[in-house]
């Protein structure tokens, strides 16, 4: 069971109260982008074994979207943070780095 703390209402929400929204921090390539950029934006997703950044929605709760960083292998949750950002908070990245020294942010 996955438990994520919603950064908006502070509820420790269990997985079934949430809706998964896929990979986080995608750049939206649209008009004016190259075919390759559009292809990667539309179809190509990371599928790492290990640290992953995802979007989640607290659908049976406050209804807000937020971000979560977790390990896809152990289900360890590193943290959740606001949706109003383009990249994970520095503090979160360094705490992940401390726990997973081999991990490289890409």
């Amino acid at each position, binding site marked *: 069971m996955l438990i994520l703390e919603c950064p*908006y*209402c*502070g*509820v*420790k*929400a*269990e997985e*079934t*109260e949430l809706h998964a929204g896929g990979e986080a921090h995608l750049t939206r390539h649209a008009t004016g982008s190259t075919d390759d950029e559009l292809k990667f934006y539309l179809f190509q997703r990371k599928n790492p074994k290990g640290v992953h950044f995802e979007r989640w929605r607290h659908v*049976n*709760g*406050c*209804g*807000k979207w937020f971000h979560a960083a977790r390990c896809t292998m152990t289900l360890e949750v590193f943290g959740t943070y606001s949706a109003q950002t383009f990249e994970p908070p520095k503090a979160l990245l360094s705490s992940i780095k401390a726990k997973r020294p081999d991990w490289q942010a890409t």
Partner: protein
Amino acid sequence: MSNVVSALQGVSADGYVEVQEMGLQGMLTLRGDLSMAKLAKAVKAAVGVEMPKQRKINLNGQTGAAWMSPDELLLIMPHAQATATAAKLTKALGKTHSLVANVSDARVVFTLSGKGAREVVAKLAPVDMQALKKGEIRRSRMAQVPAAFWLSGKDEITIVAFRSVATYVFDLLANAAAPGGEVDAY
């Protein structure tokens, strides 16, 4: 004038916890920036309570305000006052970026009363009912539908759900509260 009735017209079920549909309840949804002083003032004028903090519900007799999300409140009042309160609130907020909607007839309200009330909710919602404090409102789901609930008294829980699923929620609660289903978890 049409005869306004609640979804299940006060139906009840007697189990080891009593399930009761509460009849008509006035409810408004208010959306806007909850940190604005103007909003807090308008809420106070409309329902007579302070702006609730995160996940809190402030009740004063038959009126109150509940925190639903960072930009949403649920205002509670007697059903007959809902339309007038909505108009008053809309006027008070004026051009402030906000929305007031009368959702009274879109909802259904139940109460659970009895020693096992927390346990009945715990059977249906993924919520740590031991940790739920008085004065706190929790939005979650009950089986497959959204619901919100709070502790409204000693061994009493009030539940708000959508009217369209009123029968479903009642059946769920009645089944979870049926005699012989005691878990004695709390």
